Structures are given as C-alpha cells and as structure tokens.
C-alpha cells in the first residue's frame, strides 16, 4: 500500500507538469507571454481576444501546479531514508516545498482575476497582470533553497547504496542556479531579463520543468528499489 501511494505521489509531479503546460498554452502564455512592455490597452486585449481561453487556461494551470504537493511529500519520505537520525533537511524541504506550491498557485489565481472583468479600467488589468507575472517568476528563494537542501541531503548520503544517485544532487544545485536571473524581472520591462525575456521566462520554465521530471523519475526508482525483494547491495538504484 505504502509503495503504491509513494509511486502515485512521484507520478503526480509529471502530471502537474503536463496539466500546467496545457493550461498555460490554452491561456496563451506559452509559447510567448504578454510582455511587461505592453501598454494597458494591449494588456487588456490579451484577455479580451479570447476570454474563455484565458479563464480555462489559467484555471487548468492553477489545478496543475497544485499537483506538485504530493511530489514534495514523497521527496520528504525518501529524504528521511537518507538522513535517518535527525531529519532537519527533510523538514526544511517540506516547509520550502509548501511555500513553492503557494508561490505557484497564487499567481495563476491573480491572472484569473485579471481575466475576470475585461470591461474594467485597463490600468487595473495591467496592474493585476504585473502582479500575476512578477509573483510567478520572482519568488526565487524558496525554490533555490529547496534545491540546495535536497542536494545537501543527496550528496551527504554516505550509504554504499544511496537512496538517490549523486548526479540528482548536482542537478538540483544547477537548477537552483538557473532560477537566479528571474530576480532581474523587477528591473526590466523589455529585453532578455524582463519577465517575458529568455533568461526569466524560458530559463525558469525549462529549469522547473526539468526539476519535476528529474525528481519524479528518480524518486520513482528509489521507491521501487526500497521495496525490491533483495534488501542487499544489489537492490540499489543505479549509481550513475
């Protein structure tokens, strides 16, 4: 039973990614989002051109990103196996993971609010759009710290049969770094470091998407190894 719940939680990360990507595509954010350099009237047109698409898309996205939570849970369970005696990193990961889910869900709701009344004063819609996108891309710290905490736990796993392969730890450090340039979205309305720019939008999306895939698949393998019949060294997941 526990095994199947853990596996379902691991898969939840991939489902989250697919549902959120479909949602953002339907909403018109993918492949290219409305820019920070649009006028208030142009911003209103983004929602007014396809009101149903924007609402359904952002609704789907808000549902999708919520599905990240079970993945956080199963990562924590596997981190417990690494840490053993004093699971401080496990608890820190859970706290940070919970914050990341909020940081992902709330902006999609704000964007839904922006799409809610196309007839209102354009400047209000513009302000809500600013809030939605800046809230979505710039809360870097919970994500980055979560990556670092996971990396420390994975790389600190001294077992001859580590729970997660060491490259997963290093990949987490790299993905944490990938989020840093998103902080620049506070300063620019156009160019590569605005929220629609390649180093904020694409780097952020690709970085977090990669993290969901890496963690879902590697945790799934760790769960399978945990319940494999032979509990000796041969049951370990790949050390590659």
């Amino acid at each position, binding site marked *: *039973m*526990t095994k199947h719940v853990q596996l379902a939680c691991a898969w939840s990360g991939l489902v989250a990614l697919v549902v959120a990507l479909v949602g953002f595509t339907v909403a018109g954010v993918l492949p290219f989002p409305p820019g920070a350099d649009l006028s208030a009237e142009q911003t209103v047109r983004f929602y007014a051109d396809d009101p149903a698409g924007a609402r359904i898309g952002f609704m789907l996205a808000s549902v999708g990103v919520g599905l990240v939570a079970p993945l956080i849970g199963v990562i924590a369970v596997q981190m*417990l*196996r*690494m*840490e*053993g*005696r*004093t*699971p401080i990193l496990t608890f820190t990961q859970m706290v940070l993971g919970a914050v990341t889910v909020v940081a992902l869900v709330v902006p999609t709701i704000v964007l839904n609010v922006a799409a809610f009344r196309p007839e209102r004063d354009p400047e209000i819609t513009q302000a809500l759009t600013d809030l939605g996108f800046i809230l979505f891309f710039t809360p870097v710290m919970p994500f980055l710290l979560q990556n670092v905490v996971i990396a*420390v*736990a994975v*790389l*600190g*796993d*001294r*077992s*001859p049969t*580590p729970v997660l*392969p*060491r*490259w997963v*730890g*290093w*990949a987490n*450090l*790299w*993905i944490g*770094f*990938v989020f*840093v*340039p998103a902080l*620049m979205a506070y*300063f*620019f309305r156009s*160019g*590569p*470091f605005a929220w629609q720019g*390649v*180093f904020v939008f694409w*780097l952020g999306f690709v970085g977090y998407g990669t993290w969901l895939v890496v963690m879902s698949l590697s945790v799934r393998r760790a769960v399978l190894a945990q319940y494999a019949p032979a509990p000796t060294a041969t049951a370990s997941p790949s050390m*590659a």
Partner: protein
Amino acid sequence: MTTDADLPHFLGGPPEHAAVDDLGDVGDPAPRPPSDPRVPGEPGLWVFLLGDLTVFGAFFVGVLVSRLREPEVVRESAAHLRPALGALNTVVLLTSSLLMVAAVGAHRSGRSAAVVRRLLLGVLACTVVFAAVKVGEYAHLLGAGLEPTTTVFFTLYFVLTGIHLLHLVVGAGLVLALTRLLSRSSRRRVALVRGVASYWHMVDLLRIVLFGLLYLVAAS
C-alpha cells in the same frame, strides 16, 4: 505492512545507516574503486559544471545577438568600460587559478595542511582584489549615470558580471570552508578538494570569455 522498521528513527524506528554528521561530508562520494583519472572530482559534479556553462553559453549568445541588432549602441556603451581594469581582473583570477592548482598538487602529494591552507588563503586574497576592482568599476559607471537600464549592453554587462561575481562569492565560501576542514580533520577528502578546484576553474574560464566579449568584442 507498518512495522517499527518502517518508521524513521526519530519516531522509534532503527536508523537506516549512519546519519550525516556535518556538511563536511558533502562532496566525498561513497568509496569507489579508483575511477577514471580524466574526470576530476566526481562524475556527478560535471552535471552541475556543464549545466552552468550551458546557461552562460546562452548569456554569451545574448551578448552577440544584441551586438548584431544594435551595433552602434553596443559599441558606444562598451567604450565606457576600461579594458585595462578588465584585463587586470582577468589576470588576478588567472593567478588565483594557478594558486588553486598548486594547492591541489600540494594536497595530493601529501604536503602539510598548513601549506595547502596558505595557498588557499592566496586564492581568497585574489578574490578580494577581484571583488574590490569590480565594485570600483560598478561605482564608476553608476557615478557616470550609466545604469543597467541605460542600454541593452549595460543590462547584459551588469547582470552577467553580477551573476559571475555571485559565483565567485559562492566559490570563496567553498574555499574558506575547505581551509577550515583541512586543518580540522586528517581525512584526505581528495574528491572534495578536486571538486572545489574544478568549480573554481570554471568560474575563471567564464571570466575569460566575459572579458573577451564585453570589453573587447563589444567595443570593436
């Protein structure tokens, strides 16, 4: 299905294996047979190093694209930089890499921890000089009214050198931790030393490309 063996130790279950004792263990992989000497540090570290280099590769393409799109703006902006200061800082970082190589060599050949430590402190001294020059450059540009939002070139200049400086600060923290670890314990920690050195050389490599692109290519 639930037995005590399923519980984490803090809820009454047995520990699965020895807990992480301190951060110092990070970087030393589980004992492996002597691996391929062509990969310094451990193979997984290169997931991070090559990933990082890829992102910076995208940054460098960004600089070249901006130069293609707005050649005049980029050339005029880049003319405000002082290539002599950029060259000085590049030499400072190259010197730090040389000291790092010497430190790794001294550590591998079993020299005393004090020798390794002194070389690593030299690396840190270079970092301080580099950061001081960099901050001086920033202050000079900002004083002249040239801000990150002034032109696309200054956006790239400030953000890229800023992210590079962040890498250097992280690296300095790692080197500092290394000096303390090496003098505190007698364990060899070869993988850890090589890993930090590999990271340091990557930061140095990025600096060389940044200097070439921002100070020389952009202004030409």
